[in-house]
């Protein structure tokens, strides 16, 4: 095995520059006492890391990081500081000693091991020559989607993705349990919450541009959804983008108006339905004689025999794979979009209750 040295090319230089920026941001987040600043900096961090991810060839991850880290996370965090406070207390230096020790020890251990790892970009590193390579070799035959990340995500490791969807569902559930469904927003007017600033009729500019933007964003979400096979994207990213469109609507036109178009019950129901759809596809495969989530068995054999041969690739039906992935991506889309909306409703619908003992 020839030894490998990381080349000092443009890629590496950009990589180093971006990482240095990230390091600076982390230090800044640690130093600031303003939570607003910290959140904005974190958003910037996500954005820069999204760019870095593109440099690292992780287009799908980059996409996700951009919509989640820089997008939804920031919105949720801003909502949270609106409902709590935006300054944090100064930490006495004595109290930083133990964390410093812990972090130093952990970091030391990490460095100890990291220096033993193969160099960055080594094509013959153990991580890159075994399973990862097998996917590259087999995915197009097994699954038939050019985007191998999508193939792995939704078919090879589709079970992980089911778990991931469940995690999102659980998060929506948890937030709804803790903060409610924004029912307060429906009960009383006027709303002293996040939607406050959008409520007055003055923001003509905002309204007009929102009316133009929201359809564009929605269409883009569907593009990402259905283009996931071919390029970066998929149900998750699409769901978040869709949710962002709805959140934008709520910010500009007021929470109540959004809730009238998309009731919280609907959002909640759809988020459970998405998981059901995903798991249901798996169970359908079971009943048709395959393993769980084996999309080759999505349709009964009899049904498939009538299909033209053009759907056969190397004597292997990718037809089921294709539709299976489509179906589960739809489940992911529904769950993610509606859960994000549910979470937004929960935060936005929670009036800042400043009395020491709030509602239970």
């Amino acid at each position: 095995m020839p030894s490998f040295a990381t080349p000092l090319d443009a890629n590496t230089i950009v990589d180093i520059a971006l990482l240095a920026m990230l390091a600076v941001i982390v230090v800044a987040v640690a130093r600031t006492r303003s939570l607003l600043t910290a959140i904005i900096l974190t958003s910037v961090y996500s954005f820069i890391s999204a760019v870095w991810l593109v440099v690292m060839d992780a287009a799908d991850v980059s996409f996700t990081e951009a919509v989640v880290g820089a997008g939804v996370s920031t919105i949720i965090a801003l909502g949270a500081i609106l409902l709590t406070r935006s300054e944090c207390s100064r930490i006495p230096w004595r109290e930083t000693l133990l964390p410093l020790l812990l972090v130093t020890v952990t970091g030391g251990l990490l460095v100890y091991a990291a220096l033993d790892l193969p160099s960055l970009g080594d094509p013959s590193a153990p991580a890159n020559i075994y399973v990862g390579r097998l996917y590259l070799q087999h995915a197009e035959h097994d699954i038939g989607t050019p985007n191998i990340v999508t193939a792995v995500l939704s078919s090879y490791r589709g079970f992980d993705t089911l778990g991931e969807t469940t995690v999102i569902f659980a998060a929506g559930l948890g937030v709804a349990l803790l903060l409610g469904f924004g029912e307060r927003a429906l009960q009383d007017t006027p709303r002293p919450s996040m939607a406050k600033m959008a409520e007055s009729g003055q923001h003509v500019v905002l309204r007009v541009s929102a009316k133009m933007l929201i359809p564009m964003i929605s269409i883009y979400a569907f593009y990402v959804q259905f283009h996931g096979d071919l390029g970066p994207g998929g149900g998750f990213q699409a769901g978040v983008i869709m949710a962002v469109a709805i959140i934008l609507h709520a910010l500009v036109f007021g929470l109540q108006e959004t809730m009238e178009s998309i009731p919280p019950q609907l959002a909640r129901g759809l988020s459970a339905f998405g998981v059901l759809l995903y798991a249901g596809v798996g169970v359908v495969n079971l009943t048709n004689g395959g393993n769980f989530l084996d999309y080759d068995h999505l349709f009964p054999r009899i049904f498939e025999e009538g299909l033209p041969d053009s759907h056969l690739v190397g004597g292997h039906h990718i037809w089921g794979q294709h539709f299976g992935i489509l179906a589960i991506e739809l489940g992911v889309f529904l769950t993610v979009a509606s859960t994000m909306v549910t979470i937004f409703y929960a935060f936005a619908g929670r009036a800042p209750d400043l009395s020491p003992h709030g509602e239970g």
Partner: protein
Amino acid sequence: MSEVVTWIGSSLAVAGALAAIIGSLGVIRFPDFYTRTHAASITDTGAATLMILGLILISGWSVLALKLAIIWAFIMLTSPTAAHALTNAAYGAGERPQLGPWRLFDRDRKEAER
């Protein structure tokens, strides 16, 4: 021919980047909220326009160019709107622009920071 186009495109992109750096400088150095927002938003649109134009020239006549154009349109829509929303909200919250000679509010600001 294509060499020349690539060169032009590259210089445009670099110019855009420079504009962005200058804009950032403005965000840091300008005295009050409104001037800073102004610096930020104008570079946001201007620098992006330059860069995207450059990239279109580099990429040539393809789907990529179309996508870049759409992105440009999107930025032209969102960036001014965002700047407008920001300044509007700031004004509504009681933030007033500072008027008068430069030196004066530079000093004021430093005193306020102290």
